[in-house]
């Protein structure tokens, strides 16, 4: 059924674009020059497009209703589900509006020729554009919430309209050129004017398509792995490649063929006729490529966007730009810019037929690429198909606690109870098991770890656990290992706000007077001070923390006080006598990873908005901070931009 939906979508996109293209061609390109014969042909093309659009739109509606309800197509119609979709979903409401637009367009096309004036042209253009642009509501862009959603929707609409103006008017252009070819004396100046006007329309549309496509890629693919590692991304790249081919053909038309349409007397008409047929063929080829693009678009619309599928990384290595010196990154940027310039010169010289210059440009390009690879060498890290998988289990206390149990069962025998790589089996292993508390752990993506836990290490020292652990279990173990290493790393921090943070504290839920709260949601308001106590904190300390939280400091600081020994949690805002609330042992076990026995009764962690640990204090290591220090550090921590949210926390 999915293939029927794709087919209906493809036909509907193509016919809506063709209909808008006819009116765009009449309004922007050919108004005065339109012959009665061409007008008749365009009218027939518009009718055919409208009928196809209505039929395919109906099919799309039925298939979508079936998909939404999970019922077979026949049941969808007989049980009145289509009516429910029409009345009660936004897709249905958009479709009803579009049906009205289609009826108006049919009425316009039925008007006799004598009644058609300028107003008819522009009215038809407006309604056909409305029919096309409203398709944006049926796509991914229509559902993003808030201001980004409006932007996305606007970008999608512009993208559709530009496609209509450019690709949709290719067939009308071909019809016009065919008419000119059949006509013995096409009139060189008329021809040139029409083709030039078409080129302006096409070039404008291409610019809009670039901008809209760029916005869409940003919204839906999001990253290089998503682009080359998912079906969605690869189809998108294929679409871009076809688009570039179309632009190239269009440019050749403009640069090579346009001058030949107005031949000098010496060259004569045959040259003009050859150019005409060449132009017409190119327009048809471009239209065919445009149809291929629309086929891809039809598939893209039903695929989950690249951001929401796990990208299978196709290469055995990846670039870890963070591992490079700033100077090396600058050099890399310069090489990239030079390479782009060389490529541009290469294409331009090829188009101009200057082949020696072209060869020089391509040679320079190869040198730039080689220099870039040489500079980027230290950043090349081994990668695996799962390297860019996002953890399927959220990085949170329940997962970490479950991972700790699984770690004790399966991993501690080699890697040791504390993860130092000193388990009982390590003594007899020819290769020392990895120290899972070393900072180096974070040089690997969670996806790298997932590959090793699943399939073992290539050196044979570590077995794979794919057969005995579910994927969720493996992610739990990885979350635990990362949380423990984060705890160990955080011990290196001092009372100053660090420029290089220790990795994040796992998310956890806790009770407040107003119900349940989580660390992540609290962090949206700004930095958080996490106070971990082994014994109930004194009333004076609670009052002090309460004052910090309520204080008139430059930046708001939220305080969470956790009494690990009593397994109780309170927030400083309820001080001085907070009622202890039961919390799950999972949370206590997870937070204990961020303390050491040497800390004494209290450990304080300053978390930036991403949850990363930026400063650390302990009673046993220089004492806990006073209100003034906290206010100052909170202000500094608030200035650190929160890294963009990834989708790792979502449950799929």
């Amino acid at each position: 059924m999915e293939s029927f939906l794709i087919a209906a979508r493809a036909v509907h996109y193509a016919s809506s674009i063709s209909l808008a293209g006819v009116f765009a061609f009449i309004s922007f390109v050919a108004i005065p020059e339109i012959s009665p014969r061409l007008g008749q042909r365009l009218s027939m093309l518009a009718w055919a497009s409208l009928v196809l659009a209505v039929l395919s739109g109906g099919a799309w509606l039925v298939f979508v209703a079936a998909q939404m309800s999970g019922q077979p197509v026949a049941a969808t119609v007989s049980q009145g589900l289509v009516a429910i979709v029409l009345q009660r979903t936004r897709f249905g409401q958009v479709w009803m509006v579009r049906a009205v637009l289609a009826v108006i367009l049919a009425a316009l096309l039925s008007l006799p020729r004598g009644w058609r004036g300028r107003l008819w042209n522009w009215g038809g253009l407006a309604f056909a554009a409305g029919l096309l642009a409203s398709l944006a509501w049926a796509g991914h862009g229509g559902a993003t919430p808030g201001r980004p959603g409006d932007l996305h929707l606007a970008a999608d609409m512009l993208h559709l309209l530009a496609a209509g103006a450019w690709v949709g008017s290719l067939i009308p252009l071909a019809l016009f050129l065919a008419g000119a070819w059949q006509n013995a004396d096409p009139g060189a100046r008329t021809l040139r004017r029409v083709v030039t006007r078409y080129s302006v329309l096409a070039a404008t549309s291409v610019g809009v398509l670039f901008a809209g496509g760029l916005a869409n890629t940003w919204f839906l693919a999001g990253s290089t792995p998503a682009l080359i590692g998912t079906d969605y991304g690869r189809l998108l790249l294929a679409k871009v490649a076809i688009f570039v081919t179309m632009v190239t053909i269009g440019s050749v038309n403009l640069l090579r063929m346009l001058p030949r349409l107005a031949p000098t007397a010496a060259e004569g008409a045959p040259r003009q006729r050859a150019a005409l047929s060449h132009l017409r063929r190119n327009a048809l080829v471009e239209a065919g490529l445009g149809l291929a693009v629309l086929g891809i678009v039809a598939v893209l619309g039903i695929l989950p966007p690249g951001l929401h599928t796990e990208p299978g990384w196709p290469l055995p290595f990846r670039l870890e730009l963070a591992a490079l010196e700033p100077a090396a990154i600058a050099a890399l940027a310069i090489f990239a810019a030079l390479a782009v310039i060389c490529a541009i010169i290469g294409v331009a010289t090829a188009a101009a037929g200057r082949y020696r210059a072209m060869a020089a440009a391509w040679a320079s390009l190869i040198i730039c690429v080689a220099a870039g690879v040489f500079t980027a060498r230290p950043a090349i890290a081994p990668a695996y198909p799962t390297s860019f998988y996002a953890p399927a289990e959220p990085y949170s206390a329940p997962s970490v606690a479950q991972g700790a149990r699984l770690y004790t069962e399966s991993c501690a025998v080699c890697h040791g109870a504390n993860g130092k790589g000193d388990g009982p089996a390590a003594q007899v292993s020819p290769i020392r098991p990895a120290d899972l508390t070393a900072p180096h752990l974070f040089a690997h993506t969670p996806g790298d770890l997932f590959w090793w836990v699943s399939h073992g290490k290539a050196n044979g020292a570590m077995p794979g656990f794919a057969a005995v652990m579910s994927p969720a279990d493996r992610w739990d173990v990885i979350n635990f290992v990362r949380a423990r290493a984060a705890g160990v790393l955080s011990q290196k921090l001092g009372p100053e706000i660090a420029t290089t943070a220790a990795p994040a504290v796992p998310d956890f839920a806790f009770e407040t007077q107003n119900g349940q709260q989580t660390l992540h949601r609290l962090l949206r308001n700004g930095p958080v001070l996490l106070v971990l106590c082994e014994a109930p904190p004194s009333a004076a300390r609670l009052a002090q923390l309460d004052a910090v939280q309520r204080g008139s400091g430059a930046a708001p600081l939220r305080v969470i006080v956790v009494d690990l020994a009593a397994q109780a949690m309170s927030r400083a805002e309820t001080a001085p006598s907070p009622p202890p609330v039961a919390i799950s042992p999972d949370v206590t076990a997870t937070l204990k990873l961020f303390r050491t026995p040497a800390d004494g009764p209290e450990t304080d962690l300053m978390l930036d908005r991403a949850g990363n640990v930026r400063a650390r204090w302990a009673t046993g290591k220089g004492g806990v901070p006073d209100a003034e220090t906290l206010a100052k550090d909170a202000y500094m921590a608030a200035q650190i931009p929160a890294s963009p949210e990834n989708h790792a926390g979502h449950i799929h």
Partner: protein
Amino acid sequence: MVTHRMIVAAAVCAAAIAAKPHGVCAHAFLDHASPAVGSSVPTAPTAVTMWFTQQLEPAFTTATVIDKSGNNVDSGPAAVDTQNPTELRVPLKPLPAGTYTVTWHALSVDTHTTQGHFNFEVAGR
């Protein structure tokens, strides 16, 4: 001249695609829930509330809550908030201590379906 500009634009486009921007979600996925995913609450909640990354279609979005032995413990159908269409709420019967599973099926307004499930625990007193 137009070609050259187009080629420059193409190069800029390619460079921008190669760069790594951040993304905005496009299918409706669970952003967060109350009670939080996997969490333990001391007192039984009267409802489960879920916040999604996209606006939902009320007619085709459902959620159910079951206890360990598979009995339904929701006291009515899940409802999408009329003010905030990304919010889905399931009313609950009075819950004894135990572990509960929430299963959701969401249809976002761009006609895509997603589903998922998560647990929460009501701690014994």
